[in-house]
């Protein structure tokens, strides 16, 4: 329909620079790097490198180039989500879109599809280029089609999940700045909460503190233990797919109910304000307790509770003021 063309056109107009930067940055991190290693480097260095290869994983450098590409793509998708949601709250774009004769779900769907399309396009193009580069290089005998496909689907699912989280966070946040902060926090928040809770439990049980499993970190795209995470079975895939589905649906629902009159605030929904308030106070209290317990090196449970109370009081005061702010960015 024509209205869909209008929505796509608008998305392209406001993010066209990203449309060109994305595949280019992706190429520089992946195909370009591979090209440099096996075509453009000095012949003696290429030979030395070749002598050190004993398996296909050596040839593919254990996915290090793919990791760099995923990091690059994640940064681009983070910026895209800010442009698509946060910036529009500030520059009148959201009000313009909401006044158009189409549903908010349709507007969100276009935005989401635009980002997913950009990701897919860049991955298809660069995976194909990378395969061609490997096949024409001195490491051609180590070429594994399934390796490339594996990397493709791992990158697609993990980045699509993280991009959907960035967008979802944007639908709840009231400004560009709060979207940026919450989007950066969201993937590591489960890890931080688990860490603080484990410290609290450890202190009370008087047992040795252990770092939690890194599985709590939702930053799948930046994980470098690529072969291991896949060898762990279907759980990472299922978990990423679940995060992808929940954040996509959550974003769609939240965008449809966005309270545009609250643009500029930290969050646009009163319910999320309360969740943010409670979460901020709880985390700050736990962090305060952990700080005073460790800082004075006294291992005193009383010091832990002093820090806990101080953290709760100060954070309650801070968050009340923050929630009243109307941010200009």
């Amino acid at each position, binding site marked *: 329909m024509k209205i869909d*063309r209008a929505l796509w*056109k608008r998305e392209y107009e406001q993010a066209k620079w990203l449309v060109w930067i994305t595949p280019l940055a992706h190429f520089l991190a992946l195909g370009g790097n591979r090209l440099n290693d096996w075509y453009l480097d000095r012949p003696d260095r290429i030979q030395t490198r070749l002598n050190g290869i004993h398996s296909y994983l050596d040839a593919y450098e254990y996915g290090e180039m793919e990791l760099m590409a995923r990091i690059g793509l994640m940064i681009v998708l983070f910026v895209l989500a800010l442009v698509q949601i946060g910036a529009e709250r500030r*520059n009148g774009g959201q009000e*313009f879109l909401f006044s*158009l*004769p189409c*549903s908010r779900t349709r507007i969100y769907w276009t935005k989401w599809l635009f980002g997913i399309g950009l990701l897919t396009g860049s991955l298809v193009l660069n995976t194909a280029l990378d395969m061609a580069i490997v096949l024409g290089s001195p490491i051609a005998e180590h070429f594994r089609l399934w390796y490339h496909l594996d990397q493709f689907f791992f990158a697609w699912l993990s980045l699509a999940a993280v991009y959907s989280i960035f967008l979802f966070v944007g639908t709840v946040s009231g400004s560009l700045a709060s979207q940026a902060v919450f989007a950066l926090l969201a993937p590591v928040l489960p890890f931080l909460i688990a860490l603080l809770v484990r410290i609290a439990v450890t202190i009370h049980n008087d047992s040795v503190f252990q770092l939690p499993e890194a599985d709590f970190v939702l930053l799948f795209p930046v994980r470098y233990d690529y072969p291991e995470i896949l060898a762990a079975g279907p759980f990472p895939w299922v978990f990423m797919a679940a995060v992808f589905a929940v954040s996509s649906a959550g974003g769609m629902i939240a965008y449809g109910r966005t309270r*545009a*009159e609250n643009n500029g605030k930290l969050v646009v929904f009163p319910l999320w304000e309360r969740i943010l308030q409670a979460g901020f106070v709880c985390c700050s209290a736990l962090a305060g307790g952990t700080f005073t317990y460790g800082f004075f090196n006294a291992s005193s449970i009383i010091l832990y509770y002093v820090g806990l109370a101080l953290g709760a009081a100060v954070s309650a005061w801070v968050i009340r003021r923050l929630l009243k702010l109307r941010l200009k960015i």
Partner: protein
Amino acid sequence: MLAVRHLHKSIERQPVLKDVSFELRPGMVAGLIGRNGAGKTTLLKTMAGVYDPDAGDVLLEGESVHRRPEIKREIVFLPDNPEALFGYTPEECARLYALVYPRFDRAAFDEMIRRFGLPANRKIRQLSRGMKMLASISLGIATRASYVLLDEPTNGIDPIAKQQVLTLLVEAVSEGVTLLIASHAMGDLERLSDMILMIRQGEVEIHEIADPSRGEAVKLQVVFDGEAPAAWLASPQVMVLEHVGRVYTLLVSREEGDAKLEELRRMNPLVLEELPLALEDLFMWKHGGRSDEDR
């Protein structure tokens, strides 16, 4: 017909619109007035579907614009600053609007752009404020939508651009478009409008332009014989609009009957002449000395 039914809207727990109801008939011009922060923009944005109402609805030919947003092809909202279009040229805007509004009249838009000397290929951001509004209104009118909601269309623009904007609006009305114009330019609204919606403390009062005060007040020019009656002038039913020498221009309320007028007549003033009540007088009378606490 565009009907607003029992609309309620609160922002940050403060009621901004309270049980607002009115109707816009095809081809009419309605002026929306109220103090700064009274809720004019909130009302327009809620009617355009930018804000969701807390209760009530906005119905176009009986269908809710919030539940069926696709019917908004007949409603265009033009904000006081077309910030969302800053990155586009008028030419690009026209192409975008043509995709959104099926009856977009490209020839009419080109004609308006030519007539007002708007550069078709310069970004809206780079245009003067007057040109921005002209481009925005030209786009809105070229959509051929039946209802155009305008927020402060003449605010901050020079007299020539203002005249051009008003010309555009008059032409649109002559073609059967219904306009709802939020503005502080009372004189312009008085000339253009059939009906005035005055928003005060979240409620909307409807005033016909032929009799804006609905007989509730009378405007008088008075010259007293001797000392002006300070107590009478200070009474809540009397408002001094102007005082030059011995000449007073007054508004006298008739809401509680004609007692105050009778008192005045018994004072035998040297001059007692009834003047036509202007929209600005009505506004002053309704808001005189008081401030809205809400938006």
